[in-house]
């Protein structure tokens, strides 16, 4: 026999294999001696579980924060909107005077944005609720307008007027989409007009007493012209351009 044949014969012994049933049974036998994995025991012994009592309030707080965070994107009619309203009410209660009115107008703007959002969806049942909320904000803003002091709150009033410009733009946008008027803002607009008149009058008197450059004098004259015409909003625009310099 050659070496090659011998090796060939030797390699034939590879056919020597165990019974497959025995192989499977042995495998099972090896691992069946292991106890079931005690996952729960592991959990019970982790530091987290040990301090579960201390963690409960932390988890509760985090859940509430999460809820309020989630609620910011909700609209009136949604269950979680009440959490959003709590946040908004808190923000308003912290402000006073002209800032309070600005806060209400900001909320009214939010309602208009939400109306725009709802108008594009099938959530029409939430429309009336949102319009109602908008009206409430406008009413509150109007109440606070009378509390404004044009002498002391000029910066706050400036911000307030800017918010009302946005309000007007948003309302027109929503009314175009819905094809109907949104809320009753007549009283608000009357009060706003009064406020703008008082503000413009106060600032014109103040600027008249100052020495102005030729360009600035022109602006003041334009402001006075708008004021005489009853366009207090435009008058204020000119005046604010000037008053930023002085």
């Amino acid at each position, binding site marked *: *026999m050659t070496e090659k044949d*011998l090796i060939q*014969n030797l390699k034939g*012994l590879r*056919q*020597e*294999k*165990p019974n497959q049933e025995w192989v499977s049974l042995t495998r099972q036998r*090896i691992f069946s001696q292991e106890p079931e994995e005690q996952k729960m025991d592991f959990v019970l012994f982790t530091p987290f579980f040990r301090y579960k009592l201390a963690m409960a309030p932390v988890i509760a707080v985090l859940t509430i924060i999460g809820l309020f965070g989630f609620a910011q994107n909700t609209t009136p009619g949604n269950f979680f909107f009440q959490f959003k309203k709590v946040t908004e009410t808190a923000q308003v209660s912290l402000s006073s005077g002209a800032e309070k009115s600005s806060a209400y107008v900001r909320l009214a703007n939010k309602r208009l944005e939400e109306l725009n959002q709802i108008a594009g969806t099938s959530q029409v049942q939430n429309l009336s609720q949102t319009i109602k909320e908008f009206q409430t904000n406008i009413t509150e803003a109007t109440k606070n307008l009378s509390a404004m002091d044009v002498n002391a709150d000029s910066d706050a009033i400036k911000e307030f007027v800017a918010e009302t410009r946005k309000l007007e733009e948003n309302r027109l946008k929503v009314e175009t989409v819905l094809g109907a008027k949104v809320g009753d803002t007549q009283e608000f607009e009357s009060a706003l007009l009064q406020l703008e008149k008082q503000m413009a009058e106060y600032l014109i008197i103040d600027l008249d007493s100052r020495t102005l450059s030729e360009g600035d004098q022109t602006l003041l004259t334009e402001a006075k012209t708008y004021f005489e015409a009853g366009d207090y909003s435009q008058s204020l625009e000119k005046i604010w351009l000037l008053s930023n310099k002085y």
Partner: protein
Amino acid sequence: MANLRKTYGKIYDQYVDKIYRFVILKVKSQEAAQDLTSEVFIRGWEAMKTKGSKIDNMQAFLYQVARNLVVDHYRDTAKAQLVSVDFAPVIDHSLNLEERAVLKSDMDQVKTAMASLKDEYREVLVWYYLDELSAPEIAKLTGKEEGNIRVLIHRALQALKEEMGEV
């Protein structure tokens, strides 16, 4: 633990045939080979759980355990180099009758010849020709020099040839 079981499961599947063959060619009894092979893997599992990644070469570890168990078996039963009646080869059933008869005959001859070799020769022939381990791997297994292993393989083959000549 689940990962460890999965890993060892793969090791078991990879080496069970080889270890069984290694053992049965030494003890020549199917029953004894099954018992000893089971014991090899049970001990391997225990080692895996306690030492885990510290075992560099699982193959070498299993072979070493198998060798030790066979030595213990010889000592306990004093059945060194005896052929058992139930030492029957598993033949490939895809072969026809004539092929099977020829193969059985050749295999029987080789097995009988292998049984007559000393342990050292038989081991190295099994590792090199059946399990296809390289000389360096066998050197690692046995703790011998690679050069010595090559010489050993050559001598083992010559010894087998002589035994076959006499069979």
